[in-house]
């Protein structure tokens, strides 16, 4: 059965929230760390220096300079939540301990070399998995020109799905031959 108009509008609201989130993200370029070593807002396990390192780890794994820290901090929150498990926390702590003290301040190439050392540890896979959640965050989708769910506008069936204008004309002509 086709979805009700109600469902459509509910989804649209979600999309709008996503766009607003993206705008907020691009304005909030720096994450304000408290002066003391207390946990940053929303973090339970990690204190401010550890959070700063984890943020730098996430940014090093998937660096997109145009994105502010906010969506990366969502990834740090996911690591923080998982670190409620003592075994998980121990493996992350052991990995972080192997990074140089000035890791967060170093440039991308230096940080990549430092992270490479951890590549074969289980902690690295966990950190990569958490950092990769960046792309699940609707706030970053506008940057990648990914529109997300298509239910809100009824799918692509009545929209343009075939617009390969960059292909040479003689190649494109073949497409008529192939449409059955």
């Amino acid at each position, binding site marked *: *059965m086709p*979805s009700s108009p109600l469902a459509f509008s509910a989804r649209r609201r979600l999309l709008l929230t996503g766009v607003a989130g993206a705008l907020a993200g691009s304005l909030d370029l720096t994450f304000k760390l408290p002066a003391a070593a207390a946990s940053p807002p929303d973090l339970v396990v990690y204190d401010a220096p550890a959070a700063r390192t984890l943020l730098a780890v996430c940014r090093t794994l998937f660096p997109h300079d145009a994105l502010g820290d906010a969506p990366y901090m969502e990834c740090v929150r996911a690591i923080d939540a998982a670190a409620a498990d003592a075994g998980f926390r121990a493996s992350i702590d052991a990995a972080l301990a192997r990074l140089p003290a000035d890791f967060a301040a170093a440039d991308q190439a230096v940080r*990549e070399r430092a992270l490479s050392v951890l590549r074969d540890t289980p902690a690295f896979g966990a950190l990569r998995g958490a950092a990769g959640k960046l792309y699940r965050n609707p706030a970053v989708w506008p940057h990648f020109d990914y*529109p997300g769910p*298509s239910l809100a506008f009824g799918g692509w069936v009545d929209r343009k*799905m075939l617009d390969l204008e960059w292909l040479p004309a003689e190649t494109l002509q073949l497409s008529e031959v192939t449409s059955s």
Partner: protein
Amino acid sequence: MSARFDLNDDSVVVVIGSGAGGGTLSAALTAAGVDVVCLEAGGQVAIEQDLPTMYGRVKWADTRLSEGDLNPALPVFIAKAVGGTSIVWGGVALRIQPHEFAARTNYGEVAGAALADWPMSYAEMDPWYAQAEQRLGVTGTHGNPFLPDHNNATLLKLGARELGYTQVSNGHMAINAADRDGRPACRQFGFCAGGCVIGAKWSSLHAELPKARASGRFELRERAMAVAIEHDDAGRASGVVYVDADGKRQRQRARVVCLAANGIETPRLLLLSASGRFPKGLANGSGLVGHHYMTDLLGRAIAIMPGRVDNYRGTTYSSLVADDMRHDPARGFVGGYLFVPRGIHLPTYVNEPRADGWGAEYAEVMEAYTNMASAALIGEDLPVYDNRITLDGETLDQYGNPVPVIHKRYHDNDRALVAHGLERAADIYRALGATQVFTRASNVAIHNLGTCRLSKDPADGVCNAYGATHEVPNLFVSDGSQFVTSGAAPPTLTIAALALRQADHIVSQLRAGTI
């Protein structure tokens, strides 16, 4: 309306599993006037357009151990849900080809493989395939229109044409291109692999279970995990023990038991049902229950193109390049493969070009998301005796039963086939100017086949040509476990065709009083 049957009602057919096999079988049996109790390990799931959420929601997460080439963390991805894995299948609905039904005859002896011919010919299956195509509404067959073109599919087709491929089409998809069978036409949402929110894609959930329910002869018990099949003194299946949604053990008596729990749980349940009379496992006199495990060979190509592709738009897998499905040993391997386009959404794209990619260079590949085209390769996987499902000696599941161990090592033929196909896929995109191409084989199985294979001779397999086990005449295998060879096609259309054929056979046997 749903029926209710008493646990002691021994006139019912018990179907274990509600996916492509179990759902289709249940609908066909109830339509013929047979009462069916279907035990489904999973519950109802809501479908939404978020792939990671959906994968988490449907995933069969019970412990499985892996020995060999499959991903140790996740050797197999299948669904535990009402409707089974058919909720998340891609919709590519192709037949196993005539020459593949006689693979041993046509390929000859292949060292290290246990090739066999199916116990029935393609000609015998042809009418059942036709019935399945009509039932599933397969595009480009029986007058059903094709699905429309979109960029990702068109690039695959055009690139293939540039290389001289000729069997290039919009494919045969079990997805409505027009309203039919009470389900709407596809809206080109592009989230096929997470489940179709409107049911335009055929699935047991949307197309078969509603039919079964409407018969008034069908009871679906959700979150009912079968743990043993019992037999009587005559060696006939007499009932199924399951753990219900409240964690209580129940026994449903049965006249016939049909096992459609997917290619891992189906042999596992037979092994778990060992008894004094069947010490190696129920219906396992041949010793072949669990053996000859096949996954289909899966690979992917991700290409960064010179312009925008926006491949999240439209049906995920529609269109087909079929030339390489032929058997042509001159290529250096037996069997064949196909290409279909594969739409990828940003949230899962991060693991696609490389499963372990990261850093500035990889971020550039992520930045190129809108210019990315992608295709999947599906190929024939050889049956190998040692590739098998066994019970672990130590680890128990939440019901106290040994967890399955999945033993899978790819045959040299498998590796040669995938290498050949991935190189061709890269060529397809390079022919259109791709600036970067990433290819790799998948090590997560999504098709689980062959673990109770059909055979004429009871020494060579577990079931006869109708899926009845050789040793227990009223116990049937009704899923991909029956496959003798995998063929190059994805398995679902064949599972549905076998279920329709088996239902017809069961009905005639019930009427004749022979089971």
